């Protein structure tokens, strides 16, 4: 097949591209330039999308021996990921930009362009398994598993995707990179959000949304217990940084329970009040089996690297509903709920949807 390898400049995508070559594909490497001004993005070690990353990616492509190009996706990325990120926070939700980038950029804008140019598939260095059965499964390396941020992909998108790393641990990938003389073998992992230069999400949002002072309200008593400079700065389940004026009557810590942008109010309360046993979600995608007509017993994950809970999931006209077998704390609107079917060969992604409440 003619395949396009998305190369971030990190070790995973470099090894993925090398494996695609070894599997006999005709591989072309592409680095996505996502920053409108690369200097403002994280440099080298911790982020992605910098000039240094672009050079690392090109060097890896040269070592592997494949053509390499840079595609300018900055405008799309800004509209579909960065602006969306800000708008989601402004609406009181907690977005996952990596997931959105997969949904809108890597497996949409890039994949569509690749297909138009005659490529059959896109190869990425995501840690997830995708076999000939078309099922997306967790990576063997559970600590690095990225099936959660890929669960938004439709069957058509998965049908044109190749994830060569799903059967390897991160350690194995690094060792292989060293064996292949790829200089990125010991490049540190990227984490955090690539488009927030200093890791200061609050500052990033404040710059774009401005300061809008409001009340922090105790959900039990209705009393104003503090103030904030923008409800968007909070995430459901958050405990730190609340700056409450008054201690709770019971002396126990309080958590953010909900955010209401309309009234610019942040509700706080005790940990138990965070517990949720029913989750509603919108825009479901179902890929792991026939779209179910009745309830499905499965496991669900409610945030990246979050715990897994047994649940019964059903789809209806409004979206997806999950009854959790045990209550979970800190379920934030805007995150994805991903349903898995446990499987010794790697838990299978059944489907996903965006949590509304």
């Amino acid at each position: 097949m003619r395949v396009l390898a998305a190369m971030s400049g990190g070790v995973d995508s470099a090894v993925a591209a090398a494996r695609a070559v070894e599997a006999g594909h005709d591989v072309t490497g592409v680095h996505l330039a996502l920053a409108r001004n690369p200097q403002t993005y994280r440099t080298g070690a911790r982020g992605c999308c910098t000039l240094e990353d672009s050079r690392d990616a090109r060097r890896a492509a040269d070592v592997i021996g494949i053509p390499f190009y840079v595609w300018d996706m900055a405008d799309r990325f800004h509209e579909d990921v960065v602006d969306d990120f800000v708008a989601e926070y402004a609406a009181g939700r907690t977005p996952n930009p990596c997931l959105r980038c997969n949904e809108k950029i890597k497996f949409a804008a890039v994949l569509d362009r690749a297909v138009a140019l005659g490529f059959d598939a896109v190869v990425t260095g995501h840690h997830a398994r995708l076999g000939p059965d078309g099922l997306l499964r967790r990576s063997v390396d559970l600590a690095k598993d990225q099936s959660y941020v890929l669960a938004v992909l439709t069957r058509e998108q998965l049908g044109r995707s190749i994830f060569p790393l799903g059967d390897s641990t991160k350690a194995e990938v690094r060792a292989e990179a060293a064996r292949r003389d790829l200089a990125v073998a010991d490049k540190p992992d990227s984490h955090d959000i690539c488009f927030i230069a200093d890791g200061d999400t609050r500052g990033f949002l404040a710059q774009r949304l401005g300061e809008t002072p409001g009340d922090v309200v105790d959900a039990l008593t209705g009393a104003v217990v503090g103030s904030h400079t923008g409800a968007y700065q909070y995430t459901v389940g958050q405990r730190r940084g609340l700056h409450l004026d008054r201690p709770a009557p019971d002396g126990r810590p309080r958590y953010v329970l909900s955010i209401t942008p309309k009234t610019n109010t942040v509700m706080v309360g005790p940990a138990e009040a965070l517990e949720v046993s029913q989750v509603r979600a919108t825009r479901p995608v179902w890929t792991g089996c026939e779209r179910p007509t009745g309830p499905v017993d499965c496991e669900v994950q409610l945030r990246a690297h979050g715990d897994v809970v047994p649940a019964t999931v059903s789809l209806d006209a409004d979206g997806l509903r999950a009854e959790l077998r045990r209550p979970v704390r800190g379920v934030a609107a805007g995150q994805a709920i991903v349903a898995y079917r446990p499987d010794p060969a790697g838990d299978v992604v059944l489907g996903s949807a965006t949590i509304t409440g």
Partner: protein
Amino acid sequence: MAYLDHAATTPMLDEALEAYVATAREVGNASSLHAAGRRARRRVEESRERVAAVLGARPSEVIFTGGGTESDNLAVKGIFWARRAAHAERTRVVSSAVEHHAVLDAVDWLAGHEGAEVGWLPVDAAGRLDPERLRAELAAHGERVALVTAMWANNEVGTVQPVAELAAVAAEHGVPFHTDAIQAVGQVPVDFAASGVAALTVTGHKLGGPTGVGALLLARDVAATPLLHGGGQERDVRSGTLDTAGIVAFAVAVETAVKGQQEYAARVAALRDELVERVRQAVPEMIFNGDPADRLPGNAHFSFPGCEGDALLLLLDAQGIACSTGSACSAGVAQPSHVLLAMGADDDRARSSLRFTLGHTSTRADVDALIAALPAAVERARRAAALRTPR
């Protein structure tokens, strides 16, 4: 592989390569006093005479440098500094909107760091400069102009400028005129003295010589403040141990290219015309850019409406065809060509363009390969570009 990117760099001529290897085997620093040094110096000076002879310069006017970018920087900054040092009010630089970045960015740097003012000369839709515009510019600012710099031939669209006319206008005002003749030497007749320019840039790797060696022809009465200080080589204008092997090979290449220019130009222009005609038949909606008559023999430059040059390049590369979008990279991302924009093209047309350049190794088979691959590539690139608009 069909190599259609000779304007980026062209294969070394066998004569030049052999001269390089033979000289590189010999030890000797051309500044040393002993026999080995004398031998190296003789090779350098013979090379200087060969370059001077075929380019209409005196040997003492040839300054060897580390290539075109260095020669351009030396001319632009060096002449600016020297002229300003002589008269403090000379702070204006006149240049063209279609220069290579080696000139463009040097001029911009002077503006940003040395307080230079810049008069940019516009070009017409074919990329041509108008000597009358220069005359008006110098009539208005003549006293304050440190130098005029305008290329002999454009590296992207291949348009050849009326250099002698431009230089004559500059001479009327006593302003030194520099020309970047990198794309011109070996392609069109170039005579330093006859053209009336004060300084002329030439580089090895565009005419069959090695990369990283070139020259600035600098008239004896024109001063240039050095960029590099050190051992005082090259009239004290360009310090650094001379690259004897590189210079010898460069001189062989310059001599071969210039002596063979007429025959070369006739052959390559015929092949280029065939390429253009067959591209027109294969993709009738293409736009042929640049001056149809005053143009480099090996240059064919097109816009393919509805396509992105980047996508075409990728697709042709996959078919073994090497060409160029001509656009420079800014921060790793391709920008629309400043040359096309200066010619009045809009962003889309500038981004849709592609350059094919023929050279001394080009054959009809290269053109055949391009024509075989082009229609499908255009079709695909068009589909990819159409994705951009509605979502």
